[in-house]
């Protein structure tokens, strides 16, 4: 040892010798560990490691480069969203749940809203245009979520260009979100009863153009990785999890479909009218990281197909309502706001301030207290890009959720990490985590 780094020191503990590594001291670390006779090393990866998808902590027990035990430590991003939502109205709930899995906000919102609508008993009354817009937004969101999964997954295995391409495509999808909702993330766009606002003028034209561009660019992306020999070596046969493993671990989504089982809630238990759309459930028999990668790649095209069908439907439904015709549930989404979707509704303000005392009272009651939802409990599941996102809602008949719980696919699927990684090389852990595609906002909530 030529020099000592105060931040990269080592110390004795009851568990054995503990080394702190900062990154520029590998030589001294190897020298020091090499001097001991210890074969078994426990590596603490994260919670701030760049390739662990946010604040995920991995505790790996190694013998040489082989992982003998892998455990995930979570909870670093626990924000208490479920508790907070109990203190807010049912309408405000969307604003909370959208922040759970922040890469697929539309899915959280839709699952939540479908749950609230089931509790209210208005599932069949939701205007068709609202439902089609929901499907459109969900499929765009599936693309943007898969783009992050594929892009960062490639980046973590050392491929920078696919990440740049993927984020370029994701940007186009976020532009669509911005056009429709005014926001690129955490949109709170899907509301109980419908959607917050209709698509702006010329929106369908922009969507059509975007679909064309995306379809063209996905081909470039596919060329970079599909069949690429380095990529195959890093992903084929890596992170193996078969059907039996998926079932006992409750794993859904692309990981389950990579075992060859065509399980997709959009087909098996359709919601939002998915039975009326023509698309394929993509499967693969690899049970590995490459299989999951291929499934995500091909699901992009299926999402584009659904989007095109949505556009065709929306053309016929031009001018139709986008929120439930119920003044209590529909507010404030039913108000006409400025052309950019922002600001006050002048028409509404003139009405409550100048014309009707009763309207003012109702406005006050609905804005402060919210609407009541009949007592009961429901479980509503939809197919998010990562698997089954299920919302368990309990109402006591009041204006706030009595209990709101999300069965987050990321939370559940992350458990499979041990099964995928134990016995493999440490370098493959990163590939396996990337293929699970966990988003810590969803895992910890």
């Amino acid at each position: 040892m030529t020099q000592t780094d105060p931040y990269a020191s080592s110390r004795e503990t009851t568990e054995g010798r503990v080394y702190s590594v900062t990154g520029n001291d590998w030589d001294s670390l190897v020298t020091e560990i090499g001097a001991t006779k210890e074969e078994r090393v426990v590596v603490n990866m994260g919670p701030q490691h760049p390739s662990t998808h946010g604040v995920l902590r991995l505790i790996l027990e190694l013998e040489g480069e082989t992982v003998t035990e892998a455990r995930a430590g979570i909870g670093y991003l626990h924000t208490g969203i479920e508790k907070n939502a109990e203190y807010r109205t049912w309408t405000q709930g969307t604003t909370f749940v959208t922040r759970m899995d922040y890469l697929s906000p539309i899915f959280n919102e839709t699952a939540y809203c479908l749950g609230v609508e089931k509790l209210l008993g208005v599932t069949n009354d939701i205007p068709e245009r609202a439902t089609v817009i929901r499907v459109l937004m969900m499929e765009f969101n599936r693309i943007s979520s898969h783009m992050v999964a594929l892009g960062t997954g490639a980046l973590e295995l050392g491929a920078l260009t696919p990440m740049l391409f993927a984020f370029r495509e994701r940007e186009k999808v976020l532009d669509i979100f911005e056009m429709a909702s005014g926001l690129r993330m955490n949109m709170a766009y899907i509301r109980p009863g419908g959607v917050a606002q209709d698509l702006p003028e010329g929106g369908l034209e922009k969507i059509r153009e975007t679909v064309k561009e995306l379809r063209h660019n996905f081909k470039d992306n596919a060329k970079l990785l599909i069949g690429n020999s380095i990529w195959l070596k890093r992903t084929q046969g890596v992170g193996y999890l078969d059907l039996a493993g998926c079932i006992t671990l409750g794993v859904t989504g692309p990981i389950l479909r990579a075992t060859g089982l065509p399980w997709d809630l959009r087909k098996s238990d359709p919601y939002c009218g998915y039975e009326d759309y023509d698309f394929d459930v993509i499967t693969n028999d690899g049970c590995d990281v490459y299989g999951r990668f291929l499934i995500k790649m091909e699901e992009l095209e299926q999402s584009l197909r659904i989007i095109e069908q949505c556009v065709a439907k929306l053309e016929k439904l031009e001018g139709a309502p986008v929120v439930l015709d119920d003044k209590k549930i529909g507010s404030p989404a039913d108000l006409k706001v400025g052309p950019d979707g922002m600001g006050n509704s002048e028409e509404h303000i003139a009405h409550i301030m100048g014309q009707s005392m009763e309207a003012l009272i109702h406005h006050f009651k609905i804005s402060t207290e919210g609407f009541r939802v009949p007592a009961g409990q429901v479980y509503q599941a939809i197919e998010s890009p990562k698997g089954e996102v299920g919302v368990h809602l309990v109402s006591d008949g009041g204006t706030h959720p009595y209990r709101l719980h999300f069965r987050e696919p990321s939370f559940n699927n992350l458990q499979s990490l041990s099964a995928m990684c134990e016995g493999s090389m440490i370098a493959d852990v990163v590939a396996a985590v990337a293929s699970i595609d966990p988003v810590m906002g969803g895992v910890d909530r």
Partner: protein
Amino acid sequence: MSNEQGLFGAKGTGDTSGYGGLVRKSHNELSAERPYGGYFDEMVDELERSYPEFNDDIERVVLDRGELTLHVKADRLFHVAQVLRDNPALRFEMCMGVNGVHYPADTDRELHCVYPLLSLTHNRRVRLEVSVPDSNPHIPSLVELWAGNNWHERETFDMFGIIFDGHPGLTRILMPDDWIGHPQRKDYPLGGIPVEYKGATVPPPSERRSYR
């Protein structure tokens, strides 16, 4: 709860019009009669056939909003769940998690636990619900049947203090290991910890008026 501290605010519903005094019916009292409709009758028939103690161990069958809930006695949960998983005509291969709900007013059954089950073979769903008293919150763990319940049960323990007997390592999962209390219980306030910033103290959200 008469000894309150904190900022001023409305007590009760906050309703000043006088028309807010609706009587709420707790859904815990619901129960359903046959026929349930859909695949539910066939499924319950099969469970009755293959689980002879059905009448004793299933306390109530609730059909609400097209979803069937079986209320199971807590100490019999494992056996009922095993039949539901292993019987070829039922075959609920997947448990989609565990969720606790705290009903402080439901005396001696304050803590409820809900298990949404999914059958891939038959494309069916059913929900199991068990309730235990706050004074003795023990529920048998189902990790042996569905390994994926491991984290879900840890989360429910963390948030509600329900103890899952037989769980391989029941520790906190989201909150820090040394945290005191179980945050999702109704007697646990929102926030609960004042925020200090540059010498000033912001009261915890639970003591701000709009949250009560």
